[in-house]
């Protein structure tokens, strides 16, 4: 898991070792706790790890301590979302449609919610996606928008909150026909 890998990295970074007591005293035990965070923390810490990854070449990333700085999750999340957007790199993902000869690429950060994304896809590929129902999936069309998430699973677009979708979507695929039915109709 990513967290364990990051922990190993931290143990090796003398520069960021935390010490208790005044500088110049004997080396105390290191008190960096990481990877123990509960499920709620995971999306944040994963994002943190991604952002430190980028600065690796510049300078050693500071040790990321659980719960520090003491900023509420609500606030932390909104800063992180802002950072991802402001990075300017956008979040480009490939979009394929069954039967179409070539793929397209879209920047997920250009959209605020699902309806905007759907409209854009419909325009791009000239199709209609039908109506989304929480239990039954998409109805009224042969086309079903799906995406591959971080774990490599194929998911139905629209099931998870928008922010979660943007941070976990690796690519999009608009399924058509019989294959679509399996996913689209209440698994």
């Amino acid at each position, binding site marked *: 898991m990513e967290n364990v890998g990051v922990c190993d990295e931290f143990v090796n970074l003398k520069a960021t070792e*935390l010490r208790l*007591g*005044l500088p110049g005293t004997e080396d105390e035990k290191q*008190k960096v706790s990481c990877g*123990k965070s509960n499920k709620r923390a995971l999306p944040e810490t994963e994002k943190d790890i991604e952002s430190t990854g980028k600065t690796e070449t510049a300078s050693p990333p500071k040790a990321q301590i659980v719960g520090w*700085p003491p900023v509420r999750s*609500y606030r932390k999340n*909104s800063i992180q979302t*802002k950072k991802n957007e402001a990075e300017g790199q956008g979040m480009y993902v490939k979009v394929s449609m069954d039967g179409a000869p070539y793929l397209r690429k879209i920047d997920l950060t250009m959209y605020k919610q699902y309806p905007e994304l759907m409209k854009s896809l419909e325009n791009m590929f000239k199709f209609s996606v039908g109506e989304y129902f929480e239990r039954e999936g998409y109805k009224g069309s042969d086309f079903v928008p799906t995406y591959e998430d971080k774990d490599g699973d194929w998911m139905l677009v629209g099931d998870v909150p*928008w922010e979660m979708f943007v941070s976990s979507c690796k690519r999009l695929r608009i399924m058509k026909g019989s294959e679509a039915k399996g996913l689209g109709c209440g698994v």
Partner: protein
Amino acid sequence: MNYFPDEVIEHIFDFISSHKDRNSISLVSKSWHKIERCSRKSVFIGNCYAINPERLIQRFPSLRSLTLKGKPHFADFNLVPHEWGGFVHPWIVALAKARVELEELRLKRMVVSDESLELLSRSFASFKSLVLVSCEGFTTDGLASVAANCRHLRELDLQENEIDDHRGQWLNCFPESSTALTSLNFSCLKGETNLAALERLVARSPNLESLKVNRAVPLDALTRLMSCAPQLVDLGVGSYENEPDQESFMKLMAAIKKCTELRSLSGFSEVAPLCLTAFYPICQNLTSLNLSYAAEIQGNHLIRFIQFCKRLQRLWILDSIGDKGLEVVASTCKELQELRVFPSDLHDEEDNDTAVTEIGLVAISAGCPKLHSILYFCKQMTNAALITVAKNCPNFIRFRLCILEPNKPDHTTSQSLDEGFGAIVQACKGLRRLSLSGLLTDKVFLYIGMYAEQLEMLSIAFAGDTDKGMLYVLNGCKKMRKLEIRDSPFGNTALLADVDKYRTMRSLWMSSCEVTLGGCKRLARNAPWLNVEIINENENNDLMMERNEEDEREKVDRLYLYRTVVGARKDAPPCVTIL
């Protein structure tokens, strides 16, 4: 007083509303206790596990307003497992069963379910006010029940909750007959709302004073909302990334100009600079401003805005305002009482020259004589600055300083910040809340124990050298109620020195310290009126209890203890062991 009939005494008690005072009254005599408890309308419970709902209802049969707090404060920073507890459901069930005529419910850090909200909405015919702060576990479906069933609802205030937004039609669920709303805050909802329903609701609520919308309410909708509610006193706006066109801008400004009662402004999760200027006409009336979510706004735009806000009493801002910006605040906002400066860069990744330092803090202390509460995130601090701040502002009630890098010393002398914080506690005789940071030895705790006589809440992180530190605090601070410590070398000696001290405190939190399982067990044995909780996510209850002698020396990851009259709670998850 013995010669007055009970009704007269009760009438006199009606004038006394503070919880502290009413608690004191109830201790005077049996008859006063009885009169007080029968007439008490509003109860505050700082720890929902200190008492149970049945006993509460028994003691206060006329209960109308209840405030409950659940998870410990450090839950805000992901230090408490998600499933720890703090469920409101049993409370609502008990209150409903006893037919309490509940009118107000305020919850902080509690787990609320849609089922709870549904039961709440159906059980209390006079229910008027629901305030949820940092809660979780519910969805917009729960809100729909409240909207639909609470016919006399006046206040629905949702602050920083984790709400699953089903993007449904909960706003539609307010019946057409609902016209009593005075306060509506749904700023923490992430999804889109039914704008038409919102506009209709606002239009039919002439008493609406406080409206805080979420990010998904666009500018033209905001303009329409303000136009039909010019009586607003407190406004939270959405997210306005793009510059408005000329027409939209003029309409917005016209609507804002009409809101002459507006005193408090917040929201702005993104705001284009031009948008901000539309609010200039009402700046001079503002007493409260929260721009702490507007990350992209540069310091100079913030400064220009604040220059108009001469009556500001409360300001929440990001550190992008810089020392220069704080100097402007100091020279403009002479009525300032509360300041919070939040970090815009959490991991010190950027070489940020514009963030705030000790210079900004000193400027504020010099310029704002009424300042009594501060929360300040910064990258560096000096003892000299803190000593100056203490001299300038002896009236602090709350002083929370967070230097982003743990253990960071005075950056000019490389010494610890003991003297700086010592000066603060010595000068600020009324200090009730203190958060420490930076490099600190046992000495700072000596000062705290010696001088901080009114201190009720102390937050310690990465500080101290030995148990002496914690002992100074426990022995010296007679009014201590909440003590929370993380990553500091305090152990069993300090924990066990004075067990009776915990009778006078609400709770103690210690994580990543030196206390051992054996020490905690000993404490639990000596203090049966305490719940001593060990939180360890990698274990479960059974393994914990089977530990042999050797394991007693093992350090406890997280310890949370609190006084209680109802013994060990029964809803603890596997990762929590109650000794």
